[in-house]
């Protein structure tokens, strides 16, 4: 899958899960920028990524994926 497609899909998942209407997602977007991205939101985000990209994200990886760019790099390597 092309990198642009991955980014687009992840942004779509963020849009599904969080209220990001007035927020522009960029590579540095983190829990500080997105109010709904709390602990439950993070679990839902990881589940949605696993489903969308058909991958398994172990918990030790999930706790590190707290910035948009890290998520993007991680998914790109996994698929």
């Amino acid at each position: 899958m092309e990198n642009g497609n991955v980014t687009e899909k992840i942004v779509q998942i963020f849009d599904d899960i969080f209220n990001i209407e007035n927020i522009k997602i960029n590579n540095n977007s983190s829990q500080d920028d997105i109010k709904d991205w709390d602990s439950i939101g993070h679990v839902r985000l990881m589940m949605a990524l696993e489903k969308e990209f058909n991958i398994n994200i172990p918990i030790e990886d999930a706790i590190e994926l707290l910035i948009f760019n890290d998520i993007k790099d991680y998914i790109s390597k996994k698929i």
Partner: protein
Amino acid sequence: MEKNVNFFYNCVGNYIISKCEEWSERPFIIDKNSAVSYTYEQYFDEIRSSLYYLDKIGLEPDDFIVIEMENSVSALALLMASIVRRIIPIIVSPDTKLNEIQQICRDCSPSAIFYSMDNEGNEVCISDIKVLPINHGVGSSATEINLLSNVNSDDIAYIIYTSGSTGVPKRVNISHHNMLVEIDSMSEAYGLAKDDCHMCILPLYHASGLYRNILLAFHVGGSVKLYKEFRYDTFWSDIQNEGITFVQIVPFIAKSLLAHKEFFINGQQNRLKFIGSASAALPVRLIKEFEENFGVYLLQGYGMTEATCGITLNPLNKENRRLGSVGKPLTVNNIQILDQDNKLLPSKTIGRIVVLGDNISNFVDAKTGNSQPGILETGDIGYLDEENFLWLSGRNQDIIKRAGYRISPYEIEDAILKIYPNLQVCVIGVQHDLLGQDIVAFASREEDELSARDIIKELKFNLASYKIPSEIIFLDNIPLTGVGKVDKVKLKELYKSMFS
């Protein structure tokens, strides 16, 4: 109502004033967000300036106000100031959505809404109701506070909404008497004293955080470190560095700490007496794993918002606890196990758990409109053993417990049906390793173009984020039982077969 417990104060307002004066020089609370610390006297000044704020706005006794109860000293002082002024606060989460607040407004007609600073710039707007910040910046400690004499102990001290079983959040009126007897009874059970230091990481809009980690300290002159929220990466270092002796958690936090054991400092010297958990029964396996890994007693109790806060607690001495039980009733409570015909069952026989006591609120059943002061039908089933320890066996109702939140599936179904009235919808809780339970919605496939994504996108604007389902599964038909009710058992089996 028969009073089982004697108490000195006629109302919570006088109790607050007396306690602030009694412990004046002692340290009370550190707001870890702003790093500002308050003695009881300084905290009393905060209450005074909140009183000035309330007076300046023109609020009067018996007015209702909504407080988006963030974890801050300002919010806590505003809550206590309103109770001192005999204004009735309605405590809500800062995450409460506009339509949920509108429903509360229809129910209680509040005069003002105080919004959390987290929502600044994005505050709710409702015509004819003043919308004001919690953090007022009004610095007057000169406001006179007089002890109240015209308060009936059965008057409402505050209101809280909890998930009901009918889709309509249940309004729970906590009286002054409920609050005072509950604090007294819980304090006796927990045995904490003025040298104890509490860590408050649970939200203050939950009775558990407010009572176990604020009021239990306030009652005896203890101190509190108030955190905005739980963080697994700093939890253990804070326990050690801040000299914490007691913290209340929820099962979600226990699981999260176990998933991040690397942050536990092996061999750490801490002052912890025990860690409390009460919002859902913890599996014995999890309790054992927690205690083995972290070397601390996980003190299990049981409580409900309708009982003000706590109902039972295990003995403080770990040797005397019964692993897997939620403990014995607090002194204020009696527990009865009843069968379907309301007959009292003998010990070790499973039945409906009914709680009696002066801490039971006078709530109104949304379905029947009835209220029965002092008696609470918990909706849980279980039994008492020969020594009066309570053992939970399950729930009669379908409340979903997701990451410590109690969520009514009916509320989510209603929210979906408001947007898509032609759908058939059923929401269930499913087991989840980290969250305890997760939320799954089943919907009938009425419109081909409609996707799960579309529904979730709409729900985001109508429900707090912790209530949003993780999955929406479309079916050609929602299975029904013989009497035409949705067959939830079949749906749970279906979900299991799809994802196991």
